[in-house]
């Protein structure tokens, strides 16, 4: 098999639960037990109240496209994938992630499109959360 030539996340102590969740097909996010703030990438403290009282929740994986772009000239490692869709997805629970919209015609993607998380296993350490148009 060809080596995977694209950038991979360098997992650290704060973010390990998130990436472990992806490996188990679960999209996790942090919620502050003190003030209820939901934050999009894992941190040590709440971005709003700075309390360390963060708890992990599992997202429904449902959301919609907040914005997107169809990439026709991609960075190194992605040359053969064009055209592909880069998107920011707003999850039902209120956080956002950068991702790809996959398994659909790139030209069919619109802002507001309902999407559902799918997990793409890259190797034994990394699984990436991507999104596909939600089934009706």
């Amino acid at each position, binding site marked *: 098999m060809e080596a995977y030539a694209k950038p991979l996340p360098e997992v650290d102590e704060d973010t390990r639960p998130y990436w472990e969740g992806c490996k188990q097909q679960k999209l996790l996010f942090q919620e502050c037990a003190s003030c209820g703030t939901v934050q999009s990438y894992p941190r040590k403290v709440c971005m709003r109240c700075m309390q360390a009282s963060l708890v992990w929740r599992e997202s429904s994986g449902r959301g919609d496209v907040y914005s997107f*772009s169809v990439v026709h000239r991609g960075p190194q490692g992605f040359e053969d994938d064009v055209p592909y869709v880069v998107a920011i997805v707003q999850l039902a629970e209120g956080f956002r992630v950068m991702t790809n919209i996959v398994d659909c015609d790139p030209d069919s993607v619109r802002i507001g499109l309902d999407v559902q998380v799918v997990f793409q296993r890259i190797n034994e350490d990394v699984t990436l959360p991507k999104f596909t148009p939600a089934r009706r």
Partner: protein
Amino acid sequence: MLETALNRAAIVGIGETAVGRVPGKTARELEVEAIKLALDDAGLTKDDVDGVLTFLRWDSGWETKAPILAERLGIEPVLPLTLAFGGSSSTALFYYAGLLVGAGLAEVVVVSSSDTQLSQGGRRGTMQELVAGTADPQFELPFGVNNPSDYALYAQRHMYEFGTTSEQLASVAVTFRNHARLHPKAQMKDPLTVADVLGSRMIVSPFHLYDCAVISDGGWAVVITSAERAKDLKQKPVLMLGAAEAHFANWISHMESLTTTAATRCAAKALPMAGVGHDDIDVLFLSDQFTICPIIELEDLGFCKKGEGGAFVAEGRLALGGQIPTNTHGGLLSYCHPGKGQCFAHVVEAVIQLRGQAGDRQVKDAEVAYVHAAGGTLSAHVSLVLGAAR
């Protein structure tokens, strides 16, 4: 006007090397050349200089550190500062230099920048650096984002919320190309129409090739000293009337909004500091790395209402002779874009306009200029208000 340390400072010298494709020179050579030009322009020598402000460039990493640059020039600085937070660092350094001089911590500060993205960086390699620097390595880069796709996310959202059109985006590129055609040094001088922009190949939707800035080589330097000392120097001084800086989130996926940026805070601070209103601005400079940028900046800085930026440009209001002539040198889209030096040429052109030295591009009786730099992914914002000394 609010009395601050900043408005005790003035820009007294500018230096700019050849720009565009400048083969056979390293960025270091270009930077030294620009500093020499700027000191000559001011009528000062390197022995007058006690502050050296520069920033990391794409092509040579740590070598750009201010103490190394000072050593190369034989300057013994009290204040060598190296900044690196994206393209708007270029404009932030003028703000900091003005504060340092105004507070009496340094007497003559040289702010400089250079890069050789086009000739030496290698298009592909340089763009990889750009990507790595402007996206979250853990939560964004694995998805194949690049600098153009980040800005495309802003554009798509703006089009969705406000009905901004591809034709309006194209009109930004056309307006600034028309200005570049009047500048002898501009990198892009061929005529450009809205149809040309829309007919150029798609890079990342909705951006066609001509919605994107060029990549360039070049070196710049600006000399700043006290307004008092400026009175006795060679050139008509340009006073630093106001400035402001603001950052919301750093990475684009953590921006609360992709249609309203931290630029809103800049104008709200810089204009009152300068004691001027929007109607007093004679010539405007905006970050235009992609055509969506000036549209959002016009709105956030308060030159038009939110959502109306596209129409504002398409109506010709930014053209020379229009309501508020903008990027009279041609901007990043057509004059040049040297990477981290981003808006250096904007500031140099603002000084040229306020001195009345812009020739065919001169805005008549230009007395107040507003420069806004937006770097990173519209994440780092810096405004400067500059005024001609009376």
